[in-house]
């Protein structure tokens, strides 16, 4: 068990190394002089030279990478071109809204999707199953910002039930905090919960056809005990896996959701950085998001051993 944990943790190192090389290479993958592109169309030669020096672009590639990676290991993500502030500090300022949004979305999506998937599998072939599957297909098809605008129209503009946009820190009142999160969480969570519901149903269908389920039913166990205690427990691994993999959808969706709802989080920071071509910020955000994604999937892998004691690696 310990060996498994250590092996899995070590396995994240090459993955993160590839991510690091990719993020570094981004600046050099594009055709032309990156400094000229960052500076924009109206830049003077002096502007371009300044960005050159700032990003260390006048040094050999391997020196650039070594310096960059060395700074990275010391928690230095570079300096923003536009604001001249450390990227890590800028990211730190924006973590709270994004964390609030993603965690609330994660919790709500799981709480809605797993029961939906279980019911759909239990009532497979009935209209309940069909409605749930319809929801899943729609969830994959309605882009996050389309749903976001439909929600804003229905819940804010037409009925004035919820604030149109913005973010309120939980320190400034719990109710306003939650009220501002309702619509973004629904918009962001739709595709994620569709994915989870679909996998839950598939995994449960697999398990429900097993002999031990029939045995459990034959000995007169109530349905809820069969479904939760026997079936869900054995169907858990694919579900937990997709919860981890699906976080990529949340991270991608955050960029859009924060733009639509004017939430000052990491997604908004990314979009602003794109418009200003502030490359160190874009690189920093990608690194942070990827590291979080890798960590979450590491936790998912480690949870296998807990969920299924038969697994011995």
């Amino acid at each position, binding site marked *: 068990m310990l060996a498994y944990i250590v092996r899995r943790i070590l396995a994240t190192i090459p993955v993160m190394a590839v991510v690091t090389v990719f993020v570094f290479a981004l600046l050099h993958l594009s055709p032309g002089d990156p400094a000229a592109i960052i500076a924009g169309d109206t830049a003077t030669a002096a502007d371009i030279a300044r960005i050159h020096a700032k990003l260390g672009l006048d040094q050999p590639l391997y020196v650039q990478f070594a310096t960059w990676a060395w700074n990275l290991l010391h928690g230095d993500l570079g300096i923003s071109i536009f604001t001249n502030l450390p990227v890590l500090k800028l990211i730190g300022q924006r973590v709270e809204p994004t964390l609030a949004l993603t965690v609330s979305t994660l919790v709500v999506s799981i709480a809605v999707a797993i029961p939906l998937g279980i019911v759909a599998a239990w009532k497979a072939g009935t209209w309940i199953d069909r409605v749930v599957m319809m929801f899943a297909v729609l969830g994959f098809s309605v882009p996050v*910002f389309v749903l976001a605008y439909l929600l804003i129209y229905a819940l804010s503009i037409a009925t004035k039930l919820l604030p149109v946009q913005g973010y309120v820190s939980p320190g400034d009142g719990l109710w306003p905090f939650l009220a501002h999160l309702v619509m973004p969480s629904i918009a962001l969570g739709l595709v994620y919960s569709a994915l989870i519901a679909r996998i839950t149903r*598939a995994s449960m269908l697999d398990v429900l056809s097993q002999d031990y389920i029939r045995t459990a039913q034959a000995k007169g166990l109530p349905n809820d005990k069969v479904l939760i205690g026997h079936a869900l427990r054995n169907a858990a691994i694919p579900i937990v896996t997709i919860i981890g993999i699906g976080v990529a959808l949340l991270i991608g969706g955050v960029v859009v959701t924060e733009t639509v709802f004017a939430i000052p989080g990491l997604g908004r920071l990314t979009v602003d950085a794109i418009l200003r071509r502030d490359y160190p910020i874009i690189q920093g955000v990608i690194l942070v998001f990827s590291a979080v994604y890798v960590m979450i999937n590491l936790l998912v892998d480690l949870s296998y051993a807990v969920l299924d004691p038969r697994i011995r690696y």
Partner: protein
Amino acid sequence: MSVTPTAVVLPIVPARRGRVATYVRRHPTIAIGGGILGLMIAIAIFAPFLGTVDPVALAPAKRLRWPSADYWFGTDMFGRDLYSRTLYGTRVSLTVGVSVALLSISVGAAIGLVSGFNRWVDAIVMRVMDGLMSIPAILIAIALMALSRASLQNVVLAITVAEVPRVTRLVRGVVLTLREQPYVEAAIASGTQTIHILWRHIVPNTIAPVLVQGTFIAASAMITEAILSFIGAGTPPTIPSWGNVMAEGRAVFQVAYYIVLFPGIMLSITVLGINLLGDGLRDALDPRLARRL
């Protein structure tokens, strides 16, 4: 989904329509999804003949007109006709979806085939793919677009880079299973050239899963293109793509929500159609997987 005896009886039914009806009944999702996609392709091709005007013609005097008999979808803040812009937007979305699907499948399948057949290549390529897959696809596309000039080709390339790892993994997985099959081992044992084995025994077996994957890639590429344009990192604002139209409508959403509404609905319907088609194809081509999902 097993083949029912009706398939054998069918030839007795004289009309062609009978066969089509049976097919539709047996694969409703393919029929609905294919129908929607066909309609969208028709709209894209015949956009100039569907009562549209120049989608980029400015008419400041007629800005922000609500949908009416004259302007079916209304006008935007520059007075451009939204009905025309939305219809022409179909071209952009479908072009991106199809191009990304074709490109990422060709590149991904090529890498996956080699990787599944060569242990050394596999060890290196798969580490790289694992790394790329741990960066959320949309962030890869955003990062690539942020440093390139806004153009349709660059959007297609950026989304393709993000999608390639998934195809590679899929094809490699199929190759690894097939390699253990007796007929492939027999071919190897009898000294068949690797290229022949790949072409005659491996490639035909990857077509079904890759085709299904291709539809899902097309759907997600269309959403990604809209997202990129929406946040200002996609197709140049001069091209009337759905994402661009929605991005322009963002600022005036509270007074003119129809600007965001129409392209949004079109995008959702198109993606829904492609997803249904993909689901249907998967059910039809791979009954084993269909039961599980």
